[in-house]
């Protein structure tokens, strides 16, 4: 029992969690600390935005799938309309997802967005329009991921409900049929 509890408490995917947090932290840290070391705005901009972009990709494509079992993307169908697609693991696997993993996933997403908002307020106060540009880009990337995954999660819940009701309906039908066949 104890061993089971211990394994449940650990992260199931430490490497993925690490990378999930790594680029976020790196981009925030670089932005904040760069003011001390680096004079050139261009370097600060390019490195920070590059790290933020890396983080966006990692979250969207890797940690989303592994840590919480969700994925979202955009497709253009034959008629030229844009379609947002959401995908999730089936109910059973979702239930088996490590709680710590998903806690880390969601909270770091929110915390990063809040941090960027704070930094935006700072640069507004100091009237630094160019730094506001950097913060703006990073913030929009974070928010895009948050919105995408939240929609995906809602969609997943809806699908689960539909699936559950379908299963119940099919069970009912089959049991009714078997009842009638017996009679």
């Amino acid at each position: 029992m104890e061993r089971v509890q211990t394994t449940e408490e650990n992260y199931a995917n430490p490497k993925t969690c690490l990378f999930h947090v790594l680029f976020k932290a790196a981009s925030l840290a670089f932005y904040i600390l760069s003011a001390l070391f680096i004079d050139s705005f261009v370097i600060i901009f390019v490195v920070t935005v590059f790290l933020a972009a890396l983080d966006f990709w990692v979250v969207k494509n890797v940690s989303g799938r592994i840590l919480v079992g969700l994925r979202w993307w955009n497709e253009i169908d034959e008629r030229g309309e844009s379609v947002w697609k959401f995908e999730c693991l089936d109910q059973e696997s979702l239930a088996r997802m490590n709680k710590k993993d998903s806690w880390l996933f969601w909270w770091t997403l929110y915390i990063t967005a809040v941090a960027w908002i704070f930094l935006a307020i700072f640069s507004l106060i100091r009237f630094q329009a160019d730094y506001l540009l950097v913060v703006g880009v990073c913030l929009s990337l974070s928010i895009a991921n948050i919105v995408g995954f939240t929609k995906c999660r809602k969609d997943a819940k809806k699908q689960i409900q539909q699936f559950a009701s379908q299963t119940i309906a099919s069970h009912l039908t089959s049991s009714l049929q078997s009842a009638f066949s017996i009679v």
Partner: protein
Amino acid sequence: MSHSDTIPLHPSSQSDIDEIENLINADVHSATVLPARPPSPPRVSIPISHSASPLPPYQKVPPSASLPPIVPAVPAAAAAPAGSSRIGISSDAFGSSPDTLTEPVWDTVKRDLARIVSNLKLVVFPNPFREDPGRALRDWDLWGPFFFIVFLGLTLSWSASAKKSEVFAVAFAILAAGAIILTLNVLLLGGHIIFFQSLSLLGYCLFPLAIGALICMLEGNVIIKIVVVSVTLAWSCWAAYPFMSAAVNPRRKALALLNRNPESGIFAGLITVVDSAKIARLICCSEYDCGSNEETERRIFFIRVVRPNKYHY
């Protein structure tokens, strides 16, 4: 779901949709191996057992060289039993083919690069699909545009003799805002385009300008610079025209085209003005007979928004 009753949009995205549908319909949930398919677009990438291959921007990305090959140091022992069942489930649920799940990082990276190159070729170079906007740039991605914008900004900033950071910030802001405004403009003119697809297209059209900026940076002669700028400007316009024009009603084509040029005029202006030669900008302006670039855009915007009844689609 079979191939025969749908028009293949683009081989890669079609195979994705097929895979997803196959997996949804499949009864077997053990780690089924899907029939080998041509590599699907990066969208599906990311080997689960191999975790991250950090790639930047929006959808697929070009890799940075420093990616520590996330070595599947993932203790093979631990990963194997957990990994295989997980891969099985994930591949069923996610619709990604097993080969992309377990492919090494380098393969993912190569695929992303290939996608960027193919998008670039579609937009900027002559090819048989240009005239058919329905098939071109279906697999939009924002990585290419991201790199081109940054590159263009960096080049402009490098060649600026003063106020380098300001030049970079202004270039980036103008390029990004300009792409968004142009897209909105086409939308307001009643065109049928998708926001991100159009952003992606405009980003790829910056490629000639980026080359032009690079050449101008290396080359000292003013006359050559003017020629290069004009040529790359024309190339950009040519690249954008079919997509924009197909999206917009023919009567509005001219307006949409005119809108494309002033923006290019700004970039050309940035390049040469920083070398304190305003001739290129004058040339651009007189060629297309636009007064002030921003004014033209504002005027079009004003007409569209304030007097919509005058224009029927």
